[in-house]
């Protein structure tokens, strides 16, 4: 079995395994940070609206 696969192919297998794993782990963090940023933005907006409506009274 080993003779059928060159070193280059081995690298492909290793690359795809480690690579996709790294990609997924990074993307999970990135998506989480985006979620937090959007959340913070959303809350900031509602609080600003509330503060403005209070000061308008």
């Amino acid at each position: 079995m080993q003779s059928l696969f060159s070193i280059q192919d081995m690298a492909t297998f290793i690359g795809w395994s480690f690579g996709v794993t790294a990609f997924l782990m990074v993307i999970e963090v990135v998506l989480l940070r985006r979620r937090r940023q959007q959340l913070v933005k959303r809350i900031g907006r509602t609080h600003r609206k509330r503060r403005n409506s209070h000061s308008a009274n």
Partner: protein
Amino acid sequence: MPWFAVIAVVLTVIGLYMSFFVAPTDYKQGEVYRIIFIHVPAAWMSMFIYILMAVYAGLGLIFNTRLSSMMATALAPTGAMFTFVALWTGAFWGRPTWGTWWVWDARLTSELILLFLYLGFMALQASIDDPRRASKASALLALVGVVNVPIIYFSVKWWNTLHQGASISFEKAPTMAATMLITMLIMTFAFWSYSIATALYRVRCEILERERNSDWVLEMFNRKPS
């Protein structure tokens, strides 16, 4: 204080270094076996996180504590990710080593079913609008799942041994040199720290989302000039 994130990064770097430069070339499987330094820790994580998720979910269900339910919700996506990674890397290890991308052996098949259990948990939570009912329902599902996992594993193992014939199993890992074992442990702890870091981050997002109209959030935002 992103302690776990820092630990995760440090351990991952060490682990990866060891995976490639310290662990010796395997006599039978060559260089490709290094994939197990991802595959095995990921598989361990997938199972460990599921159990942890079920425990938190159970606590949330029995004691009605919201934080426990939220921890369960926070752990699920990370657990599902590791399950997928275990399956994916398993295929890439299997192809050069045994000639096939997939084999319906007990471990891989059970891992696949575990992925379905994770997805079911997340799907159920996503489809119920009321957050309390959603977390309770998925908690019950997780508990039913965790009780069923040994039954499923046993039955798949049984099924596999009956149909063995000329089929192969992805279970013959290279005999472990000490360095290999240590590397695997380091990668396991790396994944573990990563999981804790992401789960805690996710929980904090969840808490912020649910409490967005409360006073302490308001104060927090007032202190930051927006």
